[in-house]
């Protein structure tokens, strides 16, 4: 086992939390029963790492095997890296006939055409997502397994999620993706976050949508008050309508756990009391960032509790409506509907 494989294994062991070690190793399935027995999971992680290194040497494992372990861990715990959403554009006619084997073959061959030394591993997860691990090399060096890029694509959707990718390598990945999925272009979806499940659910609208209706079914009343006729809410209708509007704007039930939203303002400064700033010709550049453990839940609560007046500003409700959390606001646009985000390649 060479040095890079050893380093990779040590790094993976550091990342996997102690209680997940046994299940992850079992899933990997590359240890014999005897070897599995010999691992005492009550020992310190350092001791376990040493033990595992020895076992891997014994089994003559290569870096390829170790990357399997890493991939298993990342698929189970995707929430530790930053994920960026991309959207495929302009489908070709045969886009609907793309299926897994074809996609795999095409992707690998296209990417290998573009860059000589690259290591690609593709795995289909149970939830219809295709996971791709890419270790990049260049004309002179072998693939660097310590800085892989992970790509998640749901077949039959135009959405792709990627982790760390330098601007040099982005065009190569984009090209390979576009060709293998039978689309014509790919763009940045202006959506990023640490929790893959959250950004995926937001973009693909996998949460409970509420559509405006003229006669909504009666909201489940506050149980306490319904049964107790001595307590009476005076403004129950108003409260119910606020709740309804909040749910229409943000959705019902559990919302995707988005954790931040960024608005980049390039608008002119406007304040009657401050002439010096208002007189400036150039736009006043400013970045507003909202952060929370569950941003969409907080925004919905602002609307339903009446802290923010309904209907809320379309700037905030654009987040679930458009499935993005990065907005650039300029003076020329009448609102976030005509946002332009410069594609970064």
């Amino acid at each position: 086992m060479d040095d890079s494989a050893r380093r990779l294994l040590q790094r993976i062991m550091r990342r996997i939390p102690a209680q997940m070690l046994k299940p992850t190793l079992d899933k990997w399935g590359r240890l014999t029963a005897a070897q599995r027995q010999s691992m005492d999971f009550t020992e310190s992680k350092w001791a376990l790492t040493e033990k595992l290194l020895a076992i891997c040497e014994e089994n003559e494992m290569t870096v390829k095997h170790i990357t399997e372990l890493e991939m298993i861990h990342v698929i189970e715990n995707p929430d530790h890296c930053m994920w960026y959403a991309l959207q495929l554009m302009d489908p070709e006619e045969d886009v609907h006939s793309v299926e897994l084997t074809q996609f795999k073959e095409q992707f690998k061959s296209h990417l290998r055409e573009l860059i000589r030394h690259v290591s690609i591993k593709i795995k289909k997860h149970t939830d219809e997502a295709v996971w791709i691990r890419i270790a990049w090399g260049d004309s002179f060096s072998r693939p660097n397994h310590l800085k892989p890029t992970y790509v998640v694509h749901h077949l039959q959707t135009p959405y792709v999620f990627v982790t760390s990718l330098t601007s040099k390598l982005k065009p190569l990945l984009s090209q390979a993706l576009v060709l293998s999925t039978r689309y014509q272009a790919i763009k940045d979806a202006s959506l990023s976050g640490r929790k893959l499940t959250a950004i995926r659910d937001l973009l693909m609208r996998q949460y409970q949508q509420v559509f405006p209706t003229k006669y909504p079914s009666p909201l489940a009343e506050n149980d306490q008050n319904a049964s107790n006729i001595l307590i009476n809410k005076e403004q129950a209708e108003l409260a119910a309508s606020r709740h309804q509007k909040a749910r229409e704007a943000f959705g019902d039930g559990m919302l995707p756990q988005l954790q931040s939203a960024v608005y980049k303002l390039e608008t002119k400064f406007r304040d009657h009391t401050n002439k010096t700033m208002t007189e400036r010709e150039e736009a006043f550049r400013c970045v507003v960032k909202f952060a929370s453990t569950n941003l969409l839940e907080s925004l919905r609560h602002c609307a339903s509790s009446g802290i923010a007046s309904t209907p809320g500003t379309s700037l905030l409700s654009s987040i679930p409506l458009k499935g993005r959390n990065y907005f650039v606001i300029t003076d020329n646009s009448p609102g976030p509907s005509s946002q332009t985000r410069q594609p970064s390649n």
Partner: protein
Amino acid sequence: MMSLLKPFSKLPGLNTANILLVENEEQFQQSLADVLVEETSVTVTVRLAKSLPLPMENDESRPRIDLVVFIMNLTSELSFQSAEASLKYLDPGYFLGKVCFMVTNARNASVPTERLDAVRKLAASLHCPLLFAEDQTPDGVTSATERLLTVLKVAAGLVPTTTALYLSNLTRCTLPPDIDQPSFD
């Protein structure tokens, strides 16, 4: 004004006291309501509102309100402003002992002294009692409820020897003479 809530325009119920709790945040009022209705010696009904004016649709079915309590969270400026803005929708007759202010989070370090002073001045200028309550524990809720019930029973005319106006003379908020002096911070 049509939307003024009036204290004596309806007949009282037998052995009944009706209390209106006004609170922008709509939290503490629910906990208080649950305990208030458990009172056995009189029938207590509770009306909950976020702010005044109250919806006109409920005017017919609404009983005579004996006591109006404005609940303010001292850590929120919005809470104070909402309560203050609601005051003008009460008939002046309520301010003769049928209005009470209740504040929470008075001990919170983030409360600016100006806000507490402003609440005190408001309560004192309207000759109303200012009660401090702790809303996070069941004990806090119970003791706040007991104090409200004491005032409520008098305001509903259920205590033979006293009236709301008389009681308010004893309970109303007064300002310390040095309220406008800068405090040690």
